[in-house]
């Protein structure tokens, strides 16, 4: 028996780590990975709440989040490749011009 709140705290910690990574990372790929970390943290709380309320819909939401994450990863990484092609850098501080 583990209290539900433990799962929620773990989920919160992961989400907070994701937010921090989003703030302090300067590599655009690492920033993107921080977003994935946030999504994972949210997924854990979905599953934990599903188990707590005995409603399977929580697990279905995780499924949808995964689909969105996959779509996001495909498009986002394509954008990163396009950015790297034109700027030749992955540092977000140097990607500060709207147009080259």
């Amino acid at each position, binding site marked *: 028996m583990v209290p539900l709140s433990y799962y929620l705290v773990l989920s919160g910690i992961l989400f907070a780590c994701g937010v921090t990574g989003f703030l302090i990372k300067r590599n655009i790929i690492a920033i993107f990975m921080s977003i994935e970390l946030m999504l994972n943290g949210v997924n854990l709380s979905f599953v934990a709440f599903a188990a707590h309320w005995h409603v*399977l819909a929580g697990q279905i939401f995780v499924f949808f989040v995964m689909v969105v994450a996959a779509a996001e990863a495909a498009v986002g990484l394509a954008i990163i490749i396009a950015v790297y092609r034109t700027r030749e850098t992955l540092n977000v501080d140097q990607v500060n011009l709207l147009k080259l």
Partner: protein
Amino acid sequence: MISVHLILFLAFGAVCVAGAVNLLVQRHPINSALSLIAVMAALAGEYLLLGAEFVAALQVIVYAGAIMVLFVFVIMLLNAGVEDRTQGSRVAIVFGIPGMLIGSVLVAWVVLRHSGTGDVEIGALPGPPKTIGDMLFHEFLLPFEITSILILVAIMGAVVLASKPPSSPAEAPTQKVKD
């Protein structure tokens, strides 16, 4: 009372937190990616503890096995190096880390003190593939179909964005395009 469930929860949770912190600390993106994979694998363990076997399998197959392979692939393709610290990142570190610590401690405190939620048993809500499939194709049919359109658009967008822009042959040698 220390149960098997608690021990396993703490073990997987420790891997999760260590991986997440390692993601922040590492300066090479490939190390960050590997620690994120460790987080995802450990999260699959947590899902199994909660009984969500199908979600755990999907977590490993889709997240760790497909999405993260894509990340590693792009890191390898672009030959991403160690990230450099800039003025902006120093400001972010100075304000971001204390802010995150305060925020997460606050959330943890509120959740632990005021939640009043009960306990979760091991394998509390089994999510067999059959039931999940039934729900997906009955209750959640419309969202399911919409995600399929989303995926289609994402595939086309990725192809358009990542394909090389058409360039006239005259300026091709001077163009600095890296593959």
